[in-house]
């Protein structure tokens, strides 16, 4: 099993460790709810070093990325970040990624991919380079990535870096200096809160984490990361996304630019508006038992219309929430449905996503 540069800290601070996509990572340090609330009301940090980090250089790197990522990139300015999908020829999703235009001459770009898909996506890019003059370098194992999230995150970043992250637009990035070391900071995250993520050399990760701990930023594990992203309705690969689901089914059509050429475009043109494919919905319950991944959803009248892909008791709202894929005729907002939770039906209502939007957004 792989470890991250922050692993020794997790062990000495009581992290409850699990194998997540091949990396030994903490589920929680104290309590998922406490860590969740810290991010919603103050600030917390996460070790996200397991995420794959690729850098791209060479004159054709934009062409290469454009060919393999669904979102529009030609107008992505230096210092900006965009969310996109990597699809196969039939439109199924291979991964969801963040693409960074780092600017410079020659042009430099970067991409962050899911840990579970890192090898697959690297191979996919190398097998589809069409003779482009560009190269991909996998930085994952020589670097670390820390996410700092919550209402106090931006002010805290200003204390740590020589540049003020409050000057960054949402989904903006800059190179900054952290105690003499060059790092990449972006105003991005996976929690529904404001905040930033920093990529830095592996050797600088432990000093940064010690500093965050000294500044009383709460250490958070994968458990809180999951409940936070679920409330914000951010999809998780392997749950809401897979190679048998297309971006339109997932409600991610805004991240697909059908006017450019890319792998999967022809299939997606056909699949768009196909009224027979299951679609992603939000479910909200009022009882105490949470619907979990795999639970069957019944429409009124008892017909099976889909399955839950992620579900939990929401720490923010204190009622169960879930995401599910439902047959489109049964996916209208406001519809009552039932989830079969360990043999017994629990009532849910189809609601608009996201469940949680931070104040002011």
């Amino acid at each position, binding site marked *: 099993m792989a470890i991250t540069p922050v692993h020794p800290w997790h062990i000495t601070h009581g992290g409850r460790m699990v194998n997540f996509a091949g990396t030994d990572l903490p589920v929680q340090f104290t309590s998922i709810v406490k860590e969740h609330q810290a991010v919603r009301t103050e600030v917390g940090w996460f070790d996200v070093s397991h995420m794959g980090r690729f850098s791209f250089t060479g004159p054709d790197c934009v062409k290469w990325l454009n060919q393999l990522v669904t979102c529009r990139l030609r107008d992505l300015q230096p210092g900006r970040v965009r969310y996109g999908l990597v699809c196969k020829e039939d439109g199924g999703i291979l991964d969801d990624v963040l693409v960074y235009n780092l600017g410079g001459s020659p042009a430099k770009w970067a991409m962050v991919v899911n840990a579970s898909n890192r090898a697959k996506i690297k191979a996919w890019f190398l097998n589809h380079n069409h003779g482009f003059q560009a190269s991909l370098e996998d930085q994952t194992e020589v670097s670390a990535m820390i996410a700092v999230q919550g209402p106090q995150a931006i002010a805290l970043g200003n204390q740590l870096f020589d540049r003020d992250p409050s000057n960054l637009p949402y989904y903006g990035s800059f190179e900054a200096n952290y105690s003499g070391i060059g790092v990449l900071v972006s105003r991005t995250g996976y929690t529904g809160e404001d905040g930033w993520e920093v990529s830095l050399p592996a050797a600088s990760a432990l000093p940064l984490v010690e500093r965050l701990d000294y500044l009383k930023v709460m250490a958070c594990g994968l458990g809180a990361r999951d409940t936070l992203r679920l409330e914000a309705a951010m999809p998780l690969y392997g749950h809401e996304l897979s190679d048998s689901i297309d971006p339109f089914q997932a409600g991610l059509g805004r991240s697909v630019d059908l006017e450019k050429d890319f792998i999967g475009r022809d299939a997606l043109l056909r699949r768009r508006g196909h009224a027979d494919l299951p679609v992603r919905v939000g479910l909200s319950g009022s009882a*105490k038992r949470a619907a979990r991944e795999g639970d069957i959803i019944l429409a009124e009248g008892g017909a099976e219309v889909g399955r839950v892909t992620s579900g*939990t*008791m929401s720490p923010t709202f204190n009622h169960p929430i879930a995401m599910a894929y439902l047959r489109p005729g049964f996916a209208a907002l406001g519809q009552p449905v039932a989830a079969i939770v360990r043999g017994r039906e629990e009532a849910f209502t189809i609601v608009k996503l996201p469940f949680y939007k931070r104040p002011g957004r």
Partner: protein
Amino acid sequence: MNPKDLKYAKTHEWVRAEGDTLLVGLTRFAVDQLTDVTYIELPKAGAKVKAGEGMGEIESVKAVSDIYAPVSGEVVAVNGALAADASLVSRDPYGDGWLVRVRPDAVGPLDHLMAAEDYSKQTEGQ
């Protein structure tokens, strides 16, 4: 940390003999493993439970686990406070967070259960 006057099941329930009934709860180890308990489902008073078989479930933010009956018998009382506030089981697992009171089918020593010392050994290093 596990009270010496209780007997323990390997599935992390404890039993306290009180007159002709047995009080049943979950161990500190179990509730610490779960953390963030959101819901507990227990049998109703009058229900028959069988040693080693499921009698309820305990749900945390992260997952759901079964609760097993440590003895066979009839449930004579259920801790109603847990329905209003399931986290009581985490705050006071050996006291106010008890689960059910059972009238055992057979009176006698609870030899199939462990002493505190043996249970502590089982959970060490987990």
